[in-house]
């Protein structure tokens, strides 16, 4: 089975390692990432650059850990933009991230059968 | 410090060369050189040509050699430079050993 958003090898290894804790993990990933994204939207409005960077950086990292390469790369681009202090131009990019994340959520949920 | 030893063809003269500092650290090596010898050795020649430094523990080690070799064996201390010779002079070791300065 291949997934558009996920590296097969990476996610399979996670499954192997976590065994029956995998569904719990997926739930945690989804809820924590959701949280991160809403926080980031707030930080954006408040123009809190530093906090935003921490948030997007964190999301990028956990995406890499589950093998969500596409989303991770998108996060990276946004992170770089924010670091160059072009925070205003982040807005549309964040939209893309939200969309990609929604798709990822679906794939993961199916995989974990939750 | 290195010790180089050499036994004559006839097996009766042992030459022991001390290279470097002859001090407390030399104790073990110096002793090992003569420890296994027996009364077949009639003479010991301790060669100081390359000895750079000598202190009271070295004098002590020579006394130990004298003790091991016995009073009938000749012990010559050869090729002493001025500093080394001076130490033997002050301690009057020429009364116990043949001290020969470097020519």
């Amino acid at each position, binding site marked *: 089975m291949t997934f558009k958003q996920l590296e097969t090898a*990476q996610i399979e290894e*996670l499954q192997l*390692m*976590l065994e029956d*804790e995998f569904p719990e*993990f997926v739930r*945690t*990933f989804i809820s*924590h*990432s959701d949280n*991160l994204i809403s926080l980031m939207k707030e930080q954006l409005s408040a123009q809190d650059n530093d*906090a935003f*960077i*921490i948030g997007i*950086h*964190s*999301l*990028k*990292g*956990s995406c*890499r*850990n*589950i*093998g969500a390469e596409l989303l991770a790369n998108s996060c990276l681009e946004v992170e770089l933009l924010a670091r160059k202090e072009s925070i205003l131009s982040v807005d549309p990019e964040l939209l893309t991230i939200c969309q990609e994340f929604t798709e990822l959520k679906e794939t993961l949920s199916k995989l974990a059968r939750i | 410090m290195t010790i180089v030893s050499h036994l004559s063809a006839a097996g009766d003269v042992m030459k022991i060369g001390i290279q470097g500092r002859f001090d*407390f650290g030399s104790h073990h090596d110096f002793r090992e050189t003569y420890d296994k010898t027996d009364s077949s050795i009639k003479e010991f020649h301790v060669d100081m040509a390359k000895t750079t430094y000598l202190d*009271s*523990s070295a*004098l*002590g*080690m020579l*006394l*130990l050699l004298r*003790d091991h070799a016995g009073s009938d064996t000749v012990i010559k201390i050869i090729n002493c430079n001025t500093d080394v010779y001076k130490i033997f*002079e*002050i*301690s*009057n*070791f020429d*009364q*116990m050993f043949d001290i020969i300065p470097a020519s």
Partner: protein
Amino acid sequence: MSESQQLKILITEDNIADCLIINKLVKDQGYRTVIAHNGLESIESYKKEKPDIILMDALMPQMDGFEAAKRIKLLVGEDFVPIIFLTSLSDDISLVSCLEAGGDDFLSKPYNSIVIAAKINAFKRMVVLHRTVQEQRDEITRRNEYLLQEQKIAKRVFDNVAHLGCLGAPNIKHLLSPMSVFNGDVLLASKKPSGGMIVFLGDFTGHGLPAAIGAMPVAEIFYGMVAKGFGVETILEEINKKLHIILPVGFFCCACIIDMDYSWQRIKLWNGGLMDVLLKDNEGQVLSYPSSHLPLGILSPDKFSSECVNSDMKVGERIYLFSDGIVDLQDKQGNEFELDGFAGFLFENKNPDEIFEHVIDQDKLSGEANAESNDDVTFVEITMVADDVIAGKHELVESSEQHGARDWVMSFEMFDHTIRDFNPIPLMLHVTMEVPELRAFNNDVCMILSELITNGVDHGILGLDSNLKITANGFQEYYNLRNARLNQLSGESLHISLRHKPNKFGGVLIIRVVDTGSGFDVRKLNVGFPEMSQLSGRGIPLLRTLCESVVYEGSGNTVEAVFRWKNTQDDT
């Protein structure tokens, strides 16, 4: 951390999903974990849990990993708690920041279980190694402290033995600068019963406790014998004999002994193995007395020579003794204290009082320049003084011996082989020296005993004729004959009786010697001194000079000599 107790690893990660992953990974490898979600929590967790290794996320809210790592490293102190940064920062500058913040390594996301296992394992080995080294270092420090304490206690005993004497006398200045707790140099000084002083400087091979331990019997012998009026030659022979027995082969004592005679303004000196002893006279000349004997403890008694050098020394002249540690003294520039230079310095220096101060300064400078010296340093200056400056003869009675033995009788008889094998003179002398006031007359009493006993044996029992000793060849013949006859003794005896009685003026020592020989014609005794060309026969006239009376009784095989001494307070 014991074998059964696995490593405790602190995981600091703000992303909960990542945290779950890394926690599982580490736990699966058998380690215990503690979790924190930001820098501040991490520091608190460290304090509370004391983990062995820390996995630290770099970017976190509240406080980032760099700041947390810096603070934790301060808390860690000299222990070793490795910090491995968890990071998806990819540029080199950020990775350098990790290391600058005190990080020891980093792990990048995505997490790879093999890499994590390998890194934790490697650091685990380092942690164990570090702890072992620390424990061993602490153990060594503890033991070293203990040994030093032991030495300090032993030193108190040592000081009580080694420092009984008169080093505080006004005409002695000394500098003792030992390398460690124990001083391998021993400096002894004691007043003589007959006036004057004897000083002994010894430099044992090596330093510290093994060197100092030889000093204890030396000090006992020295003080005991000087107090009893023995001369430096006899004292040297005793010390050499003792050291020859107790010191292992290869260990010895370079020494110098000086007998200062204030009344005659003379010194007697023996130098075996020490640097030249220097004397600066009133004309400004510097004379040197180099070592002319082997150090003490090497030669057996029969080969040992106590021959001394004699010299005049006038009031105000000074003599300098030092052990060879002095050549290690360096000044700030690292220039060594030169011995030849010192003799030169002595010669040039017009003010004698400055000399000692100069050496003290060198010692101080040297101490500042290099914290650890290489050898014990000892330096002594003795000034010749007039007799009346130092306290009178009778002050020297040791406080432990204030009472002494003044009213007693002792007799001692030897037969045949004992006459051949045993010399009773030292024993008889030691007994008579139990009379404190006789110590000022040690030499005289020694000569008297010696003459009486020798006469009793040689002329009385062995029947040797002193006329044999008239020629030089005769001496050899005499001694050959003497040995032969000593080996053939049968039924002979020598009886010595010593008696001392006090009286209101002082005291009297009566010595009686009876031998079983056939005697001689007492009337043949010469009254005056013989011609100088005669090599013998001086005994009896000499005795008559030293003693109040010498009377031969009977057939000449009994002699009684009387030696009288007077209390000096009664002198008008």
